[in-house]
């Protein structure tokens, strides 16, 4: 198969969603955010709901999500996206409302907002990108940073005794009755991305059916923050992140797996 064959439409396996803008992504090459954005936009496009979708962007690497997603987006204060989304969903009950948050935003400063939006069972989708580090501010320790993992604020590795254990936010919210669907996915391979897309689609379907809150964690890499090449970071993620944050559905249709 030569290049001319490869670029034929029938051979295309992956493309930029129509709902992604032409703005160059501000993410580091190799970062999973771009794929996660694209999957969310593909789902919204395929469901034909873009006119009725309002996104909520966080503070963190994806603060500029509104530059890349061609939909209406409100950018929230650090950690407050679930509260912002709550109000939008409550005042526009027929709209599709989702937050797109990182681990610092959702699992540290915004823990209260996350837990209470989940507990109230708000009819929203939370997409939670967990890469175990604060990317935007330059690689500081996140609540999800693994034991022994180095960051600029745990330069000798995370010590459980003084810094606590990596927080499994996803398992935590799964136990709340208001949460309808909880899953943990990854996007670093085609296979994983296809599964993640299915999960995101299921989450937005839940909004359509007014089932309450759907929580999709995407375990991702941060090659810059982890100080690795993109490929190394993906291997490191599979070997270290996945055992602690195992992939798969945690709660489906309101029932814990």
């Amino acid at each position, binding site marked *: 198969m030569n290049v001319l064959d490869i670029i034929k439409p029938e051979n295309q396996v992956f493309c930029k969603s129509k709902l992604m803008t032409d703005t160059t992504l501000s993410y580091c090459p190799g970062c999973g955010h771009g794929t996660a954005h694209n999957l969310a936009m593909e789902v919204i496009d395929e469901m034909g709901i*873009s*006119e*009725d*979708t*309002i996104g*909520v*962007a966080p503070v963190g690497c994806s*603060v*500029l999500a*509104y530059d890349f*997603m*061609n*939909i*209406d*987006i*409100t*950018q*929230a*204060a650090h950690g*407050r996206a679930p*509260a*912002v*989304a*709550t*109000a*939008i969903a*409550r*005042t*526009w009950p*027929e*709209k599709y409302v989702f937050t797109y948050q990182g681990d610092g935003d959702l699992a540290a400063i915004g823990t*209260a*907002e996350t*837990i*209470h939006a989940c507990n109230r069972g708000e009819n929203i989708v939370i997409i939670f990108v967990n890469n175990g580090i604060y990317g935007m501010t330059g690689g500081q320790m996140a609540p999800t940073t693994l034991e022994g993992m180095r960051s600029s604020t745990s330069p000798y590795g995370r010590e459980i005794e003084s810094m606590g254990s990596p927080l499994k936010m996803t398992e935590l919210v799964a136990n709340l009755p208001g949460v309808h669907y909880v899953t943990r996915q990854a996007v670093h391979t085609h296979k994983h991305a296809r599964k993640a897309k299915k999960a995101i689609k299921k989450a937005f379907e839940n909004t359509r059916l007014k089932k309450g809150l759907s929580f999709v964690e995407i375990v991702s890499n941060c090659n810059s923050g982890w100080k690795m090449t993109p490929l190394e970071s993906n291997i490191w993620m599979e070997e270290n992140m996945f055992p602690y944050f195992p992939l798969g559905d945690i709660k489906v249709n309101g029932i814990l797996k």
Partner: protein
Amino acid sequence: MSELKLMKGNEALAEAAIRAGVDAYFGYPITPQSEVIEYLMTERPEERTGMVVLQAESEVAAINMVYGAASTGKKVMTSSSSPGISLKLEGISYLAGAELPSVIVNVVRGGPGLGTIQPSQADYFQSVKGGGHGDYKLYVLAPSSVQEMADFVEDAFDIAFKYRAPVLILSDGLIGQMMEKVNLKEQQVRLTDEEVIKLNGDWATTGKTKNRERNIITSLDLQSEKMEARVRRLMKKYEQMEQEDMRYEEFQTEDAEYLFVAYGSSARIAQKAVQLARAKGIKAGLLRPITLFPYPKKVLFDLADQVKGILSVELNAGQMVEDVRLSVEHKVPVEHFGRTGGIIHTPEEVLEALEQKFIK
């Protein structure tokens, strides 16, 4: 149909919010303003008008809920009291930065810290000098009666949407807790989603339709030039507020030789002090700023030519007095009088302070 009722200031505000066709209220209980959310929860506004009322997990969450609903062009408000407002300040700064119409109510209690639950006006600086971070101001309305607690809800939303800016109603425990006769306006119909889109669809995140570009609500501009342009846009709004929407009230100033300047509950007390002074042959008058920003600077500047002394009466250790001094540009002596800690000064005390500082 309008209706005459005996209500607490907090209740009148809540009822007026329903009648003004407000889309949503998000709050968190704190004395002395919990009657607002209690009244709303009891009234079932979702059945009366479709208004959403939600008790948030914190003041921080509540103000960010306001931010969320406001970003979609809905009429949304919250209320709290001093320590709770401190928590909301981050969100208020974001509301100002993102230029979102919204109404925040502070039923002030004494501080700093947990302070006291009794009335105070010690949040003047916080209200008019920014409070949160960055270059912004709030349009601040200071009700001095239960009637104004009701009336200012609609006034506040008019200003909020005129300028696309957050508006603060600065009340206190006295106005919030006392009951007076209040004339409630007739019920307004809440806007439909279609009407909200028609009115605010050019900027609000109501869902991107094919006939327009996407709407983005953010207070972030990483490019300095863009951020400066945003700040300039805000400053222009504040200038326009000063020109078009400054409000004040004068009481017996025509022939006044001494002037009280007071807002909110202190204005009521100072008004009585004017009556007591006049009964003693002292020609006192009262200027009541109704908006604390914009401030009636020019009115004070002119009155300074006429009076021998000005007493700024505030339930605090001396805050608004700074703005009075700035306004009169040293033309006349300006002093402060006020009790703190939740103690309310009596009209007699206020008059005595005037006499001691200027007459005796």
